[in-house]
Every structure is written in structure tokens, then in C-alpha cells.
């Protein structure tokens, strides 16, 4: 396991009780590093990620090539740095799109009448009744391979989760006593929704979106690994791993490092998401008091 993860484990053991700043700190640090990698990566990359140089094919990690080179002699470190710039934006687009669609449908279902709720929820059920990766696979096949079709396919399959979550959150708040109090005060319907119901209902949604960043990233790279997402020679982590898989035994580094980058990135967002959940989870807070 990499130094950072073992570092986190020992840091955790040293901490007692509910506050585990070291874990949160480490998570935040990794997340920041990753986002920086996406932004600055290409400038820092020691080599051109796409420069093919067959004489340097499959060189092990060295001073010259920290992460070694792949079957086409390209510098794995540079490609990994570029990869962040491909995967992260695509993930954020999926998250943003699916959140907007999901929250809209969930809120309308929660605030609308019984029929509206029933219809919208059945449509959501259809979305939920298929694993995102399978529906994305189908849509990618229909729309043709490529990162953009994977993003579209994933957005279409990811929003039902948010619709269901938003509906539950809004329904809980809709019947809260302070909303009844506002109704009796004569607060009009519009203000009731946008000033009382939605701010309170949706403020915990960002916990779920943060956690989902990791999950969506994995599915996008999965689609690329299968061959329907980012196409070769793109420096997308999933595609890179697929491209080098058959050299697994003799050039492990070409497969290991892109995967490790993907793992650390997803882990960072998972940790930050989990930390946000702990902060919002009443049961834990009560225990800690």
C-alpha cells in the first residue's frame, strides 16, 4: 500500500474519540493534490504524453521516467498527469447534469400531487432498475463510442439516484412544523418552497454528490477500459490501463500507476464525502457530545 494510505492508518490509530482530523486532513490534502494535478498537470509533465518512441518501449521506472514507459515508449507519469485533466472534468459534468435533473424531478415529485409523484417516481424506478454501467454501455453503443457519449449516457443513468434522494429530503421538510408555521403566517407558496422548504431539504445533498464523484469517475474509466469511453490514444486512465493490460506481467508499472492515480483520486473524494457525512450525521454528533 502506498505511503499515504499507511500514513493515514497510523494517524488514525493515534487519534481517539470522534475527532479524526488527521484522516480528514489527509483526505483534503490528497483531494487538493489531485485537483491541482488536473489543472497544472500538463504544464508540469516532464515529457509529451503522446510522443511515441518505440526504442524506449516498456522501460521500468527510472530517474528519467518516474513511472516508466508504456508499450509505445510514452512516459507514463506525463500521461497520468494529463489523465486527471480528462477524467475529472468529465466526472464533474456528469455529477452536475445528473444533480440538476435529479433534484428538479425529485422536488416536483415531492411537492406535486399524488399523480405527478406516482408518474415521476415510476420513471425514476426505471432509471434505478438498471445498473448505471449497463445502461451507459447500451447508450454508448447506440450513440457510438467516445468520452462525450459516455458522459451523456452516464448523466442519463445517474440522475434517478438524486431524484429519489431529493424527493425523500423534500418530503421530510414539507411536513415540518416550521413549514406549517409559515403556512399559517400566510407565506405564499413560492416563498414557502424557495425560502423554507428547499434550503433546509437540499443542504445535505452536497454530501452525496461529493461521495458520488469517486463512483462516477470509476464508471467513466470503466467504460473507457471496455472501449466505449475515451478512445485510444487518449491519456484517460481507464483507456491507458486497457491498452497496457496484456503487458501486465512484464511491464506492471504501465498498468499499476494509472490505476493508482484513479484509486487515490476516488479515495480522496470518498474521504471528504465521508467526513462531510460524519459532520452532518446527528447520531454521530450526539455520540460525540
Amino acid at each position, binding site marked *: 500500500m502506498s505511503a499515504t494510505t499507511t500514513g493515514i492508518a497510523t494517524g488514525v490509530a493515534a487519534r481517539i474519540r470522534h475527532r479524526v482530523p488527521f484522516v480528514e486532513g489527509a483526505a483534503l490534502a490528497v483531494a487538493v493534490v489531485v485537483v491541482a494535478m488536473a489543472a497544472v498537470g500538463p504544464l508540469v509533465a516532464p515529457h509529451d504524453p503522446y510522443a511515441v518512441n518505440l526504442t524506449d518501449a516498456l522501460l521500468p521506472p527510472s530517474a528519467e521516467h518516474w513511472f516508466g514507459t508504456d508499450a509505445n515508449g510514452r512516459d507514463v507519469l506525463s500521461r497520468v498527469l494529463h489523465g486527471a485533466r480528462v477524467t475529472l472534468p468529465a466526472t464533474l459534468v456528469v455529477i452536475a447534469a445528473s444533480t440538476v435533473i435529479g433534484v428538479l424531478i425529485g422536488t416536483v415529485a415531492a411537492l406535486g400531487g399524488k399523480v405527478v409523484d406516482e408518474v415521476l417516481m415510476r420513471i425514476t424506478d426505471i432509471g434505478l432498475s438498471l445498473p448505471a454501467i449497463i445502461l451507459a454501455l447500451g447508450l454508448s453503443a447506440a450513440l*457510438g463510442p467516445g468520452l462525450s457519449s459516455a458522459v451523456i449516457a452516464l448523466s442519463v443513468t445517474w440522475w434517478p439516484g438524486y431524484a429519489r434522494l431529493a424527493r425523500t429530503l423534500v418530503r421530510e421538510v414539507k411536513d415540518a412544523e416550521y413549514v406549517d408555521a409559515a403556512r399559517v403566517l400566510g407565506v405564499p407558496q413560492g416563498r414557502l418552497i424557495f425560502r423554507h422548504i428547499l434550503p433546509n431539504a437540499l443542504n445535505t445533498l452536497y454530501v452525496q454528490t461529493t461521495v458520488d464523484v469517486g463512483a462516477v469517475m470509476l464508471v467513466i474509466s470503466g467504460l473507457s477500459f471496455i472501449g466505449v469511453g475515451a478512445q485510444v490514444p487518449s491519456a484517460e486512465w481507464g483507456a491507458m490501463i486497457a491498452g497496457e493490460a496484456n503487458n501486465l506481467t512484464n511491464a506492471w508499472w504501465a*498498468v499499476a500507476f494509472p490505476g493508482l492515480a484513479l484509486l487515490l483520486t476516488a479515495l480522496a473524494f470518498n474521504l471528504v464525502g465521508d467526513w462531510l457525512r460524519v459532520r452532518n450525521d446527528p447520531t454521530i454528533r450526539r455520540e460525540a457530545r
Partner: protein
Amino acid sequence: MARLLLRRLVTSVVVLLGLAVVTFLMTQVLPGDPARAAAGRNATAEQVAAVAARLGLDRPLWDQFLAYMGRLLQGDLGTSVFTQRPVLEDVAAMLPSSVELVLAAMVINIAVAVPLGTYAAWRNGRAADAAARLITLLGAAMPVFWLGLMLQLLFAAQLRVLPLTGQLSFGKQVPAITGMTSVDALLGGDLAAFGDAVAHLVLPAITLAASFVAVVARTVRSSMLTALSSDYIQLARATGASELRVVVLHGLRNALVPASTILGMQLGWMLGSTVLVESVFGRTGIGAYAVTAVLQNDLYAVIGTVLVIGVVFVLANIAVDLVQLWLNPRLRHTGGRARRTARTEVPA
């Protein structure tokens, strides 16, 4: 209770209908000519025209949809381009080994996640809780396909402890009864083959289970926390019950109710993830079949897989409802009027 199941059946039918519509739309969204896609890339012009006529692609959308549904109900999912066999036959042949893999992964998932979640809740707030949470988050961050490759590299290639790929070692035979290699070996009484089949299952099952353990562990942990902070747990301790009995008999029984919903949903999601696992481990299955179909642009094979997985998903949810009824007595009564609820107070 009956009302609950009726509602579930109605929802299931609606969902399946929805699936059919979605998959039908997929055929229409196709860039270029749907007939060519159905006939295959290198089909001649005549073949394409024949397929176009057969599928009635020239008729208005609504008629096409009705025709599509008609074929669907008779189990005609079209013909696979690269296997030249009816898609339904292919899928039926491939499904069992994927189900075998999913069930193996589910066993690992439950065996790891439930104790982990329970332990994390029991040691809530202490270092052990944070460590348990970290392990589950690591699992959730694991790219499934990459984990498979890494496990292969370590256990199969270098340590040579476990087989690298496939369902069964070369030269071993298993009677084709259920299509699940390990089960067939067992039914055939061939223990050596059973051991071999299980050995082939270990790495892919771990790979498949890894990303699901986190969700289950977190659900068990939070519902266990709620249970452990409840009055009835404190009162159970106050009767002198041992901590083990309190946590397992009282805590876990309640914590499993929400967890069983998640596990039910995961059956479908796991079947979806076989797409990533089966190709890495060179196993036959619906996942590998779907991947090949996509890469061959064999649209009807892809749609067949999507539909079958959807059906499995719906069946899994119905099974979850049945498990819920068994686990949670309150549901048994809320369906209809509770039979013997005390309507009024015993006169004071």
C-alpha cells in the same frame, strides 16, 4: 401485507414496460442506418434490405414499437451478429456463470461488510471505527478492472497460488446441468473439479465484491448506530444480557432491515459490474458477452443484455420485499388492518 406485494408487482410491470421503451428508443437513436446495425457491418446491401423489411424499419414509429413488443413477448430478442444465434439463447447460456460469480461476490460482500459495519458502530467514535470506515472507503475507491489486474499480477502471476483466468483448469470437465461450473461440479460429485472451480472464483469474486462492501458496511454501521443508541438496547443491557447478545440479537436484527434493501439492489448492480470483471478474468458470462456485443456494434445483443439484467434486477427487488416481510414484522401488519391491535386503552 398483500397490498404491499401487489404494489411491488404493479411497479415491476411498469418498470419492465419502461425498460422495453428505453431499449426500443436505443434502436432509433442509432447514428446511421439501424438496419445496417442489425444486419452487421459487413452485410451486403440485400441482407440489409431484408433485415430492414423483417424489422419493419420503414413503418411509422408506433407500429415499429408494437412489432418490437410483439417480438419481445415471444422471446425474440433478434439475432446476434457475431454469434449468428438468437440473442435469447446466447444470454440464457451466458447468464448462469455470471449469476455464480455474483452470488460468490455477494457471499464475500456480506461476510466482510456486515461484521465490519457492526464493529465500526460498536466502537463508534474510537480509532477502530475510523479505521473500519477507512477500509470500506478504500474498497469503494477501488477501480474494479484495475483491482482484478493487480490481484492477477500478485496471486496468479507471481505467487502462482490461484489460477489466472477462466472457469476451470485446462482438461477438467463438468456436466452442464445449471451452467454454474462450481454447482455442476458439486452435482456431478466431482470434488476435485469443485475445488478447482472455486479456486477460479476467488479472485474475480473479490474483485467484484470490493466496491460494494463500502455501501453495505456504511448502511449497517449507521442503522446499527441508531439501534445501539435506542432505549431498547439500553434496556436489554439493563436486564443483564451480555454485550454480544445485545449487539447481535437486538442490534443486528434491526440493523439488517435497511441493509437487506441495499443488498437486494446490489444483486443487479453486481450483475452490471460483471462487464468489467469477466473480460479481465477471461470468464464467459453476460458481462463478457455484452462487452463483445458493444465492440462488435451488435446492437440487439446489447439490448438483450440490458433487458435481461433489468429483469433480474426487478426479480431481485421482489425477493428483497419478501425478505423484508420476514425480517420486519411491522410490514406484515401495515399492509392491511393490523389484526389484533388494541384499539382502545384497557379501561383505566
